[in-house]
């Protein structure tokens, strides 16, 4: 289907239109500014189905009218879209569509933004000849807890069904019954629950599928659409907020092929419902109670100044003692991160800043990973011959990439290979999979490198994956940031990239799936312990885990958390509990109240991504703009202003007072962002690798490092019957405030489960659903047993961030071995 054909010229309605041989006539017409009405056609959903018959046109030489959605263009084709014959066909298709349509436009949410309405008006006969009874269905009914279906309005265009079957591949939606009794439904009327299912409300061309979160909340004439970027995960999908009375009422996709392909996950689509929950921090607060901004900022400035030993008449520290101040940035824009690191480095003379939940590679390695040559961009996945998914499950960590990989396999025949600790949602489509023990990503990477260089053995775990990768010319490696928590793993990854020659092949490269939404932007803005803006080496400070240890040891006393909640999101909750308790002064910038804000001396509110103005950097280097769309509730101020004010109180004149000045300062400070303007970013973003500043990336430095780890044991070895169980953890898509504080999504809040192989379950006499207590070094978490066939014996998995049963409580920075006891026996 990919029209790589030659340029041809066709004639549409007497006008010559350039086209590409083999592309669908409908697409060529649209590009040539000829509007042909349609309902079912949507190239994103796969091959055309030709069901709605709305796009019939006359083609000279063919007696019958043809559907333009399914007719490939040929040189010299002469097409008519406005002849009497075509008009009659269009009239009659509209008339047929309305035979059974209830025409309840006045009470239909789609009214005013409805393709059926528009096309009836533009191409219909303008009068009705139908006096017969219409077909009836019970309506509306729950297709899912989030989507209502009105089967009377449905025109059976197949879009939602094709989405379910050919895009998200959950296969839950089906057409049931036949003829005009056909309806869209699920097997046995079960609720359609799947992570991307909200997209069907976007693609439905009538009011048959509507979101419960939007039904009867607004009409198209009292809303505004505001384009922005979703920052609930690193996918950074482009969205459009539907805003009424300055409140977000709906989130719809804003198709950007380079980022999201026009799809959204349900987290991004329905996440906005947590913006206005009672748990939202709506103003500054001191430990004693509410405060106004002046008091709060004064308290922060005073506290930090004391710790840094600053004489407030001059900028910077006048002491040579190691700084006792530290900051960790979590969910923040590039500008916010940039300002926080300036405050730390320039106002408080502290190098202790990080933006990673745990550990990560040294700045020198990060620079090598950032080399444009070894980087892949999202659309490269579409064209890849082979894709390696390494140490991440895109469905949980960057959902939209899960769809992208599925598309590459389905449409382009890409070969997928998966190497992960835990089974992924993509395993079913993989040509080869490899399971490794938690903490052994570096090991499998060095083994993969060996296999690729021909140094491996045929029996190696990674050999089948290497075979697939070696055959491919364009290879994209999707790798999870947490792989690089292991010493030497990032270096081993670079060696794999080198063995595959990714740098030399266009469309090949590495694409990181980070743990946090703007991980790349924050690193590049300077929120790293050993690098400032632009990954430029600086005096080494403390990393996240060193900050934690410093707090416990009393070497760090003052901590600023900006959009970070260590007690939920960071590994080793008990240590963080101890560290935050030990802190003399804790400032927490937070969107919602949580366990961390409860410990804070000062709590300052954060804007949501619907309220914020700023830029973020996509994992593939694309700078994107988050635009303010909704009003800030309560006494929330723009984060940029708050940080600039704080800097100024600390004696640092940043020259920043607004988003434009903050952005200008950022792009001036990051060498490879130099010269990028807001208009370059526009609505679609721009990859810095594709600007002339890309060459400003600092030298990577020597490739040496700790080197590949020694293989301590065989990966595929049988762990033996009495082997301890190694715990692996993953960030569940639905764990966190996005479900817990969100009434419509609450039903998706995960419960902790202990995922275990059937062999281990049998050995420990565990049954599905059984309650167990999982413990490690004095901490324990309760969970229900879930036996999974694809889990390797010897490993068990639990989700991070689950309220009340957070697997982070069991971690201590490396692979841990856990003890499992049945809960009913423990109680007895």
């Amino acid at each position, binding site marked *: 289907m990919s029209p790589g054909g030659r340029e041809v010229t066709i004639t549409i309605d007497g006008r010559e239109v350039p086209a590409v041989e083999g592309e669908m006539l409908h697409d060529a017409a649209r590009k040539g500014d000829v509007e042909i009405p349609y309902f079912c056609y949507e190239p994103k959903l796969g091959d055309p189905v030709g069901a*709605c018959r709305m796009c019939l046109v006359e083609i000279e030489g063919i007696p019958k009218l043809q559907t333009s959605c399914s007719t490939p263009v040929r040189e010299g084709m002469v097409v008519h879209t406005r002849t009497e014959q075509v008009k009659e066909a269009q009239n*009659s298709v509209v008339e047929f569509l309305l035979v059974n349509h209830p025409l309840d436009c006045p009470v239909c949410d789609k009214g005013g933004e409805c393709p059926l309405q528009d096309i009836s008006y533009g191409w219909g006969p303008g009068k009705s000849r139908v006096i*017969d009874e219409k077909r009836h269905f019970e309506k509306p009914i729950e297709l899912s807890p989030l989507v209502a279906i009105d089967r009377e309005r449905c025109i059976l265009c197949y879009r939602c069904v094709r989405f379910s079957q050919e895009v998200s591949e959950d296969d839950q939606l089906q057409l049931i019954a036949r*003829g005009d009794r056909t309806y869209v439904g699920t097997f046995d009327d079960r609720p359609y629950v799947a992570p991307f299912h909200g997209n069907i409300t976007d693609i439905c061309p009538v009011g048959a599928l509507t979101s419960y979160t939007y039904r009867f909340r607004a009409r198209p004439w009292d809303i505004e659409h505001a384009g922005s970027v979703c920052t609930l995960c690193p996918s950074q999908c482009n969205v459009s907020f539907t805003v009424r009375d300055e409140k977000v009422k709906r989130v719809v996709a804003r198709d950007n092929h380079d980022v999201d392909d026009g799809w959204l996950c349900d987290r991004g689509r329905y996440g906005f419902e947590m913006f206005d929950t009672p748990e939202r921090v709506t103003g500054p607060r001191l430990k004693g109670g509410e405060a106004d901004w002046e008091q709060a900022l004064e308290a922060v400035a005073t506290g930090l100044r004391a710790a840094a030993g600053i004489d407030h008449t001059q900028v910077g520290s006048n002491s040579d003692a190691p700084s006792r101040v530290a900051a960790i940035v979590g969910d923040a824009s590039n500008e916010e991160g940039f300002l926080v690191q300036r405050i730390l480095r320039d106002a408080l003379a502290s190098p202790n800043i990080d933006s990673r939940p745990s550990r990560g590679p040294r700045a020198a390695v990060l620079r090598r990973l950032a080399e444009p040559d070894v980087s892949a961009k999202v659309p490269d996945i579409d064209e890849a011959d082979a894709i390696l998914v390494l140490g991440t499950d895109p469905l949980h960590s960057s959902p939209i990439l899960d769809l992208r990989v599925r598309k590459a396999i389905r449409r382009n025949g890409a070969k997928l290979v998966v190497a992960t600790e835990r089974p992924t949602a993509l395993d079913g489509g993989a040509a080869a999979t490899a399971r490794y023990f938690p903490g052994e990503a570096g090991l499998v990477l060095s083994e993969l490198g060996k296999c690729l260089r021909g140094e491996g053995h045929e029996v190696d775990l990674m050999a089948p994956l290497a075979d697939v990768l070696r055959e491919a010319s364009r290879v994209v490696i999707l790798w999870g940031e947490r792989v690089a928590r292991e010493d030497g793993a990032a270096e081993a990854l670079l060696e794999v990239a080198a063995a595959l020659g990714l740098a030399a092949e266009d469309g090949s490269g590495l694409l990181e799936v980070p743990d946090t939404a703007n991980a790349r932007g924050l690193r590049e803005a300077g929120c790293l312990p050993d690098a400032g803006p632009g990954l430029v080496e600086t005096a080494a400070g403390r990393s996240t885990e060193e900050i934690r240890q410093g707090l416990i040891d009393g070497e760090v006393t003052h901590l600023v958390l900006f959009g970070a909640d260590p007690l939920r999101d960071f590994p080793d909750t008990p240590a963080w509990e101890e560290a935050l308790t030990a802190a003399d002064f804790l400032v927490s910038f937070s969107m919602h109240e949580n366990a961390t804000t409860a410990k804070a001396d000062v709590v300052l509110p954060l804007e949501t991504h619907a309220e914020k103005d700023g830029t973020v950097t996509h994992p593939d280097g694309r700078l994107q703009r988050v635009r303010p769309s909704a009003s800030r509730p309560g006494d929330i101020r723009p984060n940029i202003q708050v940080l600039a004010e704080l800097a100024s109180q600390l004696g640092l004149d940043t020259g920043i007072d607004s988003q434009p000045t903050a952005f200008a300062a950022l792009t001036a400070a990051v060498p490879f962002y130099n010269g990028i303007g807001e208009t370059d970013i526009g609505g679609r973003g721009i990859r810095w690798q594709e600007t002339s500043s890309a060459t400003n990336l600092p030298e990577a430095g020597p490739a040496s490092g700790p080197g590949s780890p020694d293989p301590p044991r065989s990966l595929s070895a049988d762990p033996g019957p009495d082997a301890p169980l190694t715990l692996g953890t993953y960030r569940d898509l639905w764990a966190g405030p996005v479900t817990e504080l969100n009434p419509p999504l609450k039903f998706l809040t995960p419960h902790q489960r202990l995922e275990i192989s059937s062999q281990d379950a049998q050995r420990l006499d565990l049954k599905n659903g059984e309650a167990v207590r999982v413990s490690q070094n004095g901490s324990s978490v309760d969970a229900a047993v879930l036996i999974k066939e694809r889990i390797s014996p010897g490993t068990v998995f639990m989700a991070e961030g689950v309220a009340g049963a957070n697997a982070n409580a069991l971690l201590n920075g490396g692979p841990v071995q856990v003890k499992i006891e049945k809960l009913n026996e423990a109680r007895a």
Partner: protein
Amino acid sequence: MPHRLEKRVLLEHASEPALRTLDGYRRLAGGYATLERSYKEMEQDEVLKELEDSGLRGRGGAGFAMGKKASFLPRGDMPKYLCCNADESEPGAFKDRELMQRNPHQLIEGIAIAALAADAGHAFIFIRGEYDEQADILDQAVAEAYEAGYLGTNILGCHRDLELVVHRGAGAYICGEETALLDALEGKRGNPRLKPPFPAVQGLYGGPTLINNVETLSNVPHIVRRGAEWFRGFGTEQSPGTKVVSISGGVKRPGNYEVELGIPTRELVYELAGGPEDGHEIKAFFPGGSSSPVLTAEEGLDLPYSFEAMAEAGSMLGSGSIIVCDDRVSIPHLALRTARFYHHESCGKCVPCREGTNWTVKMLERMVRGEATPMDLDVVSSVQQNIIGHCLCVLGDSMAMPVGAMVRKFREEFEQVMEDPDLVLDPHAVVRGAPETLGAST
């Protein structure tokens, strides 16, 4: 004895029960000799040329030249398929049932030889679920053919393979549409696919696929045995060969009659099928199953029964199934019954067929209840026009063409019924079902 007007080729020896067995087929009809010769001595192109030269037109309804269709299949090593369409579902058609029931090996031999022409390694007979008895007969015959080495691997030591599977359909009319048949065979919902790509290029499991009707394939051994010239000795220039014609409805001797194409229709209806029952006149007839536009007796009875003559008269030969309506038949009720069938069987994929069939039924129901006005007749006519040529497959046309023709040709009768619905004494006096007998011979 067959009637003098019959010309039995496919139905030769059909009254012998032994024909069903492999031994009987070999003994009575010289069966499988042609398969043996073609597999041992003929190249793909020779078989193909014979079929093309014969001018054999598809007997399933569309009448497309069979050899030509087979020649569209691309050459190469990819898997290719042959599907025999035995989903005979058109009201009025019952000839494939007879052919499979009485002479299953003729079909199997035809499939094997056609597979040679198509270079297909896998063949399927997609038989409608209701033809349970015939499917059992085919199963048995296929097993015999495997045992005798006419199917399977290395057939007759010629290093050619052919697997043949009898697949029972689940009872949807639409699965007789060739692309819906492919979807159903693949285990999907039986909905027609967009064409192009045509099945010859991209059919079953994406491979080149030749799809032919039972009767078409049953002709193949005869053509290859006796040559294209012999075949062209029957019928007309544009409609060569013989045709098994199913005649049902208001005639004395309904049944299947094999005749040369081009025979006067009147001879078929009056001499072979015995004409209308005593005291009744023929009012109209469908020349090619319920989806063909009706012809009035005056229009149609004196036409030669050939593809071209029926097309010229604005109807079609279709699958070769004549449904005779005598003067007791109420055309408005017949139109409603026809529309109901296609409404019931519409798959619902494309709009004009899904909504057009349902709307037509509703309007016709109002008419026979006397709740319509002559203006509604114009709407019915115009709706039929709006369906024709606008659908994804021909199912919509299959209702719109006959219903449109009935309203056009019998408008007065519709007006009378709307005026006084009680005038119709027996709304069920439409047509009778298919008989169990073989023409006039039994």
